[in-house]
């Protein structure tokens, strides 16, 4: 898995969403959102797009790959 920086937490808090709420919106478990925010899980393109739409931010600003 390539290293990446994840700004999901910042955008999630901007939208005033809890991990649980975001997880429900994109159809995953809260733990998966937690792992994503720690950049310990590399999401699929489908999930990345869903998250991007849910927090209303561009993918490339949420997930930054080297």
């Amino acid at each position: 898995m390539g290293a990446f920086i994840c700004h999901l937490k910042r955008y999630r808090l901007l939208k005033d969403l809890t991990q649980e709420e975001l997880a429900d919106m994109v159809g995953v478990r809260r733990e998966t959102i937690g792992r994503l925010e720690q950049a310990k899980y590399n999401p699929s393109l489908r999930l990345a797009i869903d998250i991007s739409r849910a927090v209303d931010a561009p993918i490339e600003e949420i997930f930054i790959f080297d």
Partner: protein
Amino acid sequence: MSKSNIRKLLVLGVVCLVIVLGSTWYANKYNEGRLVTPTDFSNYRFQFNDLPMMIALLLVIAYVVYFVFSVVQAGVRKEGLASPYARTISPKLGLLGFMGFLGLLGFWTYKTDKLIFPFIFFNFFGFFGLYFQGKMSHIRMDERFIENAQQAQIIAYKTGLLLMFLVASLMGMGLFAHNLEWAVIFLLSSISLIWGIATFLSSYLLYRYDQGEE
């Protein structure tokens, strides 16, 4: 499978059993046990009294075909309506893993009756994996879960294959080469045990990955 289908299968099974028992009784009483006792079909000639036993046999074959078809059909339907949640089971079911020790019975049955099939019970050690499945009971199977499950299965099967290779190598090097019976026992026990290990590992590793302990 719906309850009505299960009931239908059970009723048909009981009907078949009654017909088989009835025709067996008829054959023993009025047909000198033909088609009940071992029959030499090279000299077989049809007699009218054979008819009940033949009908019973055809019914049993039809029932078995129907049974298999129903079970497969129910499986396909269930797959189509797959739930996004992991199955709900109790971690206590992991205690069934202790049934693996029944495999040791094989040493006793081999000594007394030369029976070796109880060695197969070693594969019940795989039930220990139900403990970890129970701990992940009814959690949402999202993409991370599915990815972890696939990774866990690959590692479990690779481990199983490696162990099988080791067993094959040991036998190829001549382990038990002078005692065919012990060679078969060793092979049967190893395959059963490896099956149990692979089954357990896929559940255990999935749990570890899911908890983030990679």
